[in-house]
């Protein structure tokens, strides 16, 4: 939220004075120059944003590197609670959601997001080690847009991400 506020303020400053420098913005908002630069960089990032939610560090790291290489802006969350916060602050284009995550599990996170009209349009791809059909049914009933079983094929995952993103754009 803090970052959101800063973003809004920077935007209004930019609107009122298109020639304003980073230094001036920094002074105006009394935040560091680095931070302003970082926010500006993030704001100017036109890549599609993927939120990866997984509590397994290595899986997360590998997926992050792979997706970044593919040209996505990857945001990560390690538990359900962090995932919801990140969705609110980052507004990702797609969410890769592991089912077995601490605090709030994947099903519940999905349910909460899909019941909130502000975020319900964001496509959710469920990732899980469980292969049971029940999970698939539940995942789709809760509004997950797709379902990938761990360990997944990287190519397939990328194709599915592209597909849900395109589908969303078409709408």
């Amino acid at each position, binding site marked *: 939220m803090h970052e959101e506020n800063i973003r809004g303020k920077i935007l209004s400053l930019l609107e009122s004075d298109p020639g304003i420098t980073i230094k001036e913005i920094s002074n105006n908002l009394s935040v560091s120059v680095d931070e302003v630069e970082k926010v500006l960089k993030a704001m100017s990032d036109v890549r599609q944003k993927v939120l990866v939610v997984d*509590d*397994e*560090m*290595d*899986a997360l*790291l*590998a*997926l992050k*590197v*792979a997706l970044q*290489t593919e040209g996505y802006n990857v945001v990560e969350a*390690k*538990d359900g609670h962090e995932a919801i916060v990140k969705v609110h602050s980052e507004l990702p284009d797609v969410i890769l959601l592991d089912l*077995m995550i*601490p*605090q709030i599990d994947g099903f519940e996170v999905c349910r909460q997001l899909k019941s909130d009209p502000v975020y319900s349009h964001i496509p959710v791809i469920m990732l899980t*080690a*469980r*292969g049971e059909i029940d999970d698939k049914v539940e995942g789709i009933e809760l509004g997950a847009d797709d379902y990938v079983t*761990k*360990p*997944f*094929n*990287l*190519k397939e995952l990328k194709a599915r991400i592209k597909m849900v993103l395109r589908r969303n754009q078409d709408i």
Partner: protein
Amino acid sequence: MWNQRSRWNIILFAVIVLLLISSIVFLWMKTNVEIRAVVEEQYQNQQLLLTRQISDSIERSLTEKVLLLEVIAKKDSGVPPDNFSSDLKSVYDVAGMFYVVEYVTADGTIVSGYPEEHVPYGLNLYENNEYRAFERVKETGVVYITDPLRLMEGNYGSFIWVPVYDGDEFKGTFIAIISESDLRSRYVVESNSSSYAYLLDKRGRLLYDESGTYERGVNYAELMNSSSSGLLDIIAAQVNGMEGNGKYLLLDEGSVVEEMLVSYSPISWYNQQWSLAITSPSSDVDRLIVSVYLKLFIVAVVSVLFIVFVSSFIVLILFNWSKSLEKEVDWKTQELKESNASLLQANKKLKELDRLKTEFLSIVSHELKTPLTAMKTSSEFLRENDECDTALRQQMLDIVIRNIDRQSRMVDDLLDISRIESNRMKFHRDLVDIEDTILFSIGLLELPLKEADMSVQVDIPENIGHIYTDKDKLVQVFVNLLNNAIKFSKKGGKVTIFVEEETDFIKVSVSDNGIGISQEEMGRIFDKFYQIDSTSTRKVGGSGLGLSIVKGIIEGQGGTITVSSEYGRGSTFVFTLKKEQ
């Protein structure tokens, strides 16, 4: 206790018993009546025999006496000169029961007789107006006997008139008087107190009554003042000269006093028709059969008692039987309930086990697939991006190697758990130096300890004995416990290993000053896959099997392991192992 059905059974049973008892009582009474009837009949027949005997003997005796006089009267020799004085004396002596015998001449004058003091010599019947009987005998020429008449002496007697003939010529008559008292003393048997005899004439008038209280000559029926048809029948039969038995009810002012049994027999003495009767109260019969009554009564009572005893015995047996049946049913029901409850319990346990198994499988598959996911993603990435820079390549390869290690540790742990749970874990026991083992374990964890900036303090008393255990497994215990301490401690934490020697075992405690364990988690930390705080656990990685394996190894060798903790301050694991073999 008694349900509806057994109550009906009891009622039915009681009815049967009552029927049996009443039939016995009925038979007893019927037998009494029959016996009484038979005995009464016998008694009456006996009485009749007696009556007949007495009446016969009276009749015969009286007739004989008269015959004596008739024999003299029929003498062919005519009237002797002494006017039959000597003959009459002889007859008097022979007969022995005449009051007096006299001779009356044809003109009606008493001229002789015996005994002389009773003879009114010279009395003329015509002159004294007592000639009717004389005239009658004179006309008919047959013996005539009068009804008993009052004599001059005051008592009663019958006058016997016997005609005397000489050829066809009437020569007068003999008069003999039989006094009643003589008759009585001679022929009436001394009967017992309760029976008495009476004599009626053919007009039903009382001639003789044993008690002597009734006036003679009265009508017997009037005397008894009885309307009982039995008595009238008896009197009618007696008047008609019949022989037989009868009975009537003796009444006193309308109420029955008792039943009387009467036997009667006729006495036929020339023109006189008399009837002798002997009467006894029927209570005499009862008196005779009272002992039979008593015995029958005893038999009946004994039978009833026997039935009551047997039936109550049967009731008691049935009651006990049904009670024991009930008890058995109760017992069986209880048993069934218990077994049902234990089956339910077992079923619940099995379901719980099934659930745990499913959960275990799902966790295991998750735990096995997670490193695979990381490896697969990394390796696929490497394949696709040949041209990526060395640092990124290195990073991805590290991920692959790390996850291979993790996977193999996981498999080892799972195998250990499997062996522990199926009691197949093998311990290669030997005498192990505890200090060496601890130091060796710490050496294995040098790197993680360094990364966490943690120190381990080891406190072992001098000259401590050896432990008889599997060294590799003991190392595993220390590594797992130390790993846990590292995982759940902040940077710069401290671990203390404290060893104590007890009598026959060695106690080891491993303490840390980490995040500790809350009260509710304390009971579950030894469970498979249980991890206190998943978030923090995943940071360092871990199967969640370490403490289960530790517990398995310690308890598998007969040791114990406990945990104590203060939340936020640290935890202490204490285990014991046997010192010697």
